[in-house]
């Protein structure tokens, strides 16, 4: 079948990894808004500074779902610091490329992880801004890109 997306994107879209919620999550991050057509919500469970579990829920196109799925795989089992180093470019590469107007999906994936980590820091009384940087308001306009 001729396809608009790479095989990896289609594979992650059809069999997304780590879909769902974590009831007792240690950090939850949400990026994007329904107006623009993409929302990503990440839940992380942290033990000894390590992301031991991660789940996501995404409202969005095929590449948004695939980017969320692959990003959860890329940070699962990693330390917080390692997870924060994940860039949207790495997500695009791991997906075998994205069409130009879909690059923002990978940015949402990177940002939603950062937002979940920021939430984790906040819950532990640490100001996340110096570590994570400024993240776009999930209820504001645009994707912050």
């Amino acid at each position, binding site marked *: 079948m001729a396809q608009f997306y790479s095989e990896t994107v*289609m594979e992650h879209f059809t069999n997304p990894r780590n879909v769902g919620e974590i009831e007792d999550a240690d950090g939850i991050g949400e990026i994007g808004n*329904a107006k*623009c*057509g993409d929302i990503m919500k990440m839940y992380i469970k942290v033990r000894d500074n390590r992301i031991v579990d991660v789940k996501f829920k*995404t409202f969005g196109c*095929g590449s948004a779902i695939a980017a969320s799925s692959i990003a959860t795989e890329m940070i699962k089992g990693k330390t917080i610091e390692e997870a924060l180093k994940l860039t949207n470019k790495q997500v695009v590469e791991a997906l075998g490329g994205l069409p130009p107007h879909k690059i923002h999906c990978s940015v949402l994936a990177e940002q939603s992880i950062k937002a979940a980590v920021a939430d984790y820091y906040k819950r532990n009384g640490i100001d996340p801004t110096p570590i994570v940087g400024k993240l776009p308001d999930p209820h504001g306009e645009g994707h912050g890109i």
Partner: protein
Amino acid sequence: MSRMIYVDNAATTRIYPEVLDKMMPFLTDQYGNPSSLYSFGQYARQAVDEARDTVAECLNCRSDEVYFTSGGSESDNWAIRMAAHLMADKGKKHIISTAIEHHAVLHTLKALEKQGFEVTLLPVGQNGIVSAKDVRDAIRDDTALVTVMFANNEIGTIQPIAEIGEICREKGVWFHTDAVQAVGHIPVDFAKMNIDMLSLSAHKFHGPKGVGALIIRRGIRFPSFIEGGAQEKGRRAGTENTAGIVGLAHALKLSCERMEKTIPSLAAMRDRLITGILNTVERTRLNGDPVNRLPGNANFSFEGIEGESLLLLLDFKGICASSGSACTSGSLDPSHVLLALGLPHAIAHGSLRITLSDENTDEDIDTLLSEIPPIISRLRSMSPVWEKIQKGEDYE
């Protein structure tokens, strides 16, 4: 993959085999140029003339009012630009249209605005229909043109064309209609509806791609759109696309002959689909008017999901459909048509357009009714928006 179910007939249609048969001689042995004097060329000339007569008969216009073009977009561009510039010479630089036109019209109007024209885009009601009274009220002394589509390509709503035609004729304002989605699908009467210019495209009614027509009422003295030859009475130069023109005419003839049967049978399939989906999938709405809509058009919005992922999952099941979501348009905004209905962005992103033709069957509807609901559930189960809806939270 199992059998393909093609339900995107507003995008394009399959050429009728009988149409292809009529075209084939002109793609093979009968390759003469209709402008050539010898009989080999005149055979092609005759075919083009006959095609013009057929189109005129189907639409109740005169043969000399039919100008063949490359398709709907060209016809829209030609009609609007020429009318605007002719009228500008008389100091009339105001154009009236609607918020739900095809981009071939909207973008042409945008370009004219940059050239100093003033454009009034009338709103539509929640049902996607423009009010004829609004058209009347918008007409000014300097109105050059009214352009209102016959039927909408996304939500299938049929506009009050006869009423608008009557108003425009009474007011002495030219009236163009983009009838690309209507011709061959529902009755269109050029003379009786007081239309001055009408655009149509062959591939929307089982004809070939790359050929259309602009019908221009006799008496409107248009300058030529393409210079360089005497074709189409010197107004649109270029060697005629003989095969395409013959195909257009035959497809239109067949579509019009079959219309009496197609309209009720498509409407029955459409209504069964609409009822079935609305009854089984919660938080779903039908976009457009339930009655005044094209017989083959159904357009839904499913809350909590995004249209592109829906299309991809339908594609896995061999179902070809379309959506007004931003992701399918390449921009961040969903369809301007759905937004014009007053739909919130989030709901407009979750739209699905199903457009049937006489080649679809009751089994196709059965398949759609069994395949669509589980796909919606699957996408909703991974959607944070659906989660918010379930909790009764605001998500817009």
